């Protein structure tokens, strides 16, 4: 007798598809935040599963810091062309040129923080009322209480003290003008779930996720990719190492990890036995302070 039970990956997939369809139905102008990282690639895959053979009921939205890995941009543009979907790019460079934000100075300058303004400007410009993001609750302590439909006020801010309760799978997609949602269909996934799902579905990922001989330099105990916009400090030098990236964000703050995982199975084995959380290992932006993430989320960060 069949057991009528879904595997955990099928159950997570069904939940995510349900969320995407519900959001598309309840909001008028959604957008999918597409960074070219694995979580957003998985979201794109789930979106296709939710709405094909029709076009997606939302465009992809990329906040381009101008300091992305070239592979990310290449991958993004190829995917968009292949699928015939719409891409909107919010440019941090433009925000700087227009004087909306001031570029940080010095060798440790990063555009990571500036993204928030560009994102909120792009949301306002296009009138987006729901942005689908790939955040997961297992990533970081501040996210454990995040809602799936996460409400943002007219300033784009998250108010952790005033979140709507979320019951059953009855999402409340009601908004007032000027407010918007961040919608997180992967809330209940862990990093390992994402990797196993990538394998199950045969999803293509940028090569950055796999261990290769790469040029790196060491700073504050982490390995980074050299780039023209990251001046080296005295004592730093570029060398070759076999590394991969566990997350892919802005080059100025995305670190590499030493790894021998050259293919998907090896990555899964590595993640399954990993002893350091994804963000702890490779994201300098979270390390500044314990409450760093919570602060940035309140401001309207992803």
């Amino acid at each position, binding site marked *: 007798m069949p057991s*009528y039970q879904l595997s955990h990956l099928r159950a997570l997939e069904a939940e995510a598809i349900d969320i995407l369809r519900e959001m598309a139905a309840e909001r008028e102008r959604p957008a999918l935040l597409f960074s070219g990282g694995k979580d957003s690639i998985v979201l794109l895959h789930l979106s296709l599963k939710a709405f094909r053979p029709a076009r997606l009921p939302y465009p992809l939205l990329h906040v381009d810091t101008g300091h992305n890995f070239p592979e990310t941009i290449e991958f993004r543009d190829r995917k968009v062309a292949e699928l015939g979907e719409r891409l909107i790019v919010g440019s941090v460079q433009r925000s700087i040129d227009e004087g909306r934000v001031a570029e940080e100075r010095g060798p440790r300058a990063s555009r990571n923080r500036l993204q928030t303004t560009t994102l909120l400007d792009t949301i306002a410009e296009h009138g987006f009322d729901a942005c689908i993001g790939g955040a997961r609750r297992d990533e970081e302590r501040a996210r*454990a209480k995040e809602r799936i439909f996460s409400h943002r006020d007219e300033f784009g801010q998250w108010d952790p003290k005033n979140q709507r309760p979320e*019951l059953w799978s009855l999402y409340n997609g009601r908004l007032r003008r000027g407010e918007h949602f961040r919608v997180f269909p992967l809330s209940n996934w862990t990093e390992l779930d994402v990797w196993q799902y990538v394998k199950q579905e045969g999803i293509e990922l940028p090569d950055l996720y796999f261990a290769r001989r790469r040029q790196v330099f060491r700073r504050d105990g982490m390995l980074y990719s050299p780039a023209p916009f990251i001046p080296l400090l005295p004592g730093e030098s570029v060398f070759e190492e076999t590394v991969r990236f566990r997350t892919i964000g802005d080059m100025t703050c995305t670190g590499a990890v030493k790894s021998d995982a050259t293919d998907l199975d090896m990555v899964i084995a590595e993640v399954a036995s990993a002893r350091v959380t994804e963000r702890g290992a490779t994201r300098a932006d979270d390390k500044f302070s314990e409450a760093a993430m919570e602060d940035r989320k309140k401001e309207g960060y992803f």
Partner: protein
Amino acid sequence: MGEIVDTSKGIHRGIEEGRDLLRFITCGSVDDGKSTLIGRLQYDTKTIFEDQLEHVEDVSRRRGNERTDLALLTDGLRAEREQGITIDVAYRYFSTPHRKFIMADAPGHIQYTRNMVTGASTANLAIILVDARKGMVEQSRRHAFIASLLGIPHLVFAVNKMDLVDYDEAVFDRIRAEFTNWAAKLQVRDVVFVPISALNGDNVVEKSAKMPWYRGTPLLYHLETVHIASDRNLIDVRFPVQWVIRPQSAEHPDYRGYAGTVAGGILKPGDDVVALPSGFTSKIARIETADGPLDEAFPPMAVVVHLADEIDVSRGDMLCRPNNQPIVGQDLDAMICWMVDRPLRARGRYALKHTTRWVRGMVTELQYRLDVNTLHRDEAAESLGLNDIGRVRLRTTSPIFYDAYARNRTTGSFILADEVTNETVAAGMLLSPGQ
């Protein structure tokens, strides 16, 4: 309540692709040891990462603790209070080779009933912590009651701090007997008691050598093997239409698929169906996902259904079998939990969401407010405040298609939202007429 079931029940398997998923809630009040237990489960299943552990060791040291306090892995109710962090449901994850677990961590004190209701709404199982020294206290009963109200089919009483009562069997037996007498009025099918020490790890992951008298299985083993396949309603076919896929492209000029998540029953191609509210009938021509056609679909699968005839079906409609239809009604009886500071207004108007449908509704009558500690019904109550639970009657502007919550948690639940602020103000569980 059904019989008390021993934990040593058979293992159920049958998933082709490995692990399945169990959602559960942990409830306990300050100092019952909930945070320690959660930390223990995550630690012993190797879910804790080095940087998280370092952080916890660091904080423990700074506070002058001798040993690493696993409770710090979760925020901990006390810590949250001290730091002024919002007291809210937190979701945590761990897995074993058999199952993935989604754990809703909800503080159980009376002023957080709303959080417990939220966490319980999606749970298959509830772990209720009881301090062995105190036994069943008012709040353990409240937790059990809320779990039963929210239709959680499996209850586990983790009788904690057994180390502080010399691992004494008599203490455990007394607590079990106390509850069993009281719980006759609750509707919980499956209740299990496990004596543990969260601090020392007794009977959490490994069977404890200190309690040889305990014949059941350790807590984690129970979580891994509890049979959840029949928790869903696989009898009454219910398919709320969520989204109509209509590409209208050159390639797919006539494609019309009804996308949604199966809320009950097993759908098969060839089945006769009726669409509500129109009452038009048709047959299921095929069921598909992006991976191809399916022979059958069951909850909670997200699928696309194609009908043999071109009848008019849109979002908010429901497909079911002609000979097994839900209740269609505008006058609803329900238990609700109030979730905001502003009290329920008599004759207040709210937006009501049920499955994929929003309607407007008015609370026409508050029948009683329930004292969640004593289960006493206060029929003189005139309003419900934050964290109150009561029975109401509602009138909606158009009919909804529903089942009693006890029969189907998906088609039997709704939320109310304030029409001005849009906040979610209440969670509702429908009763069948005359219930």
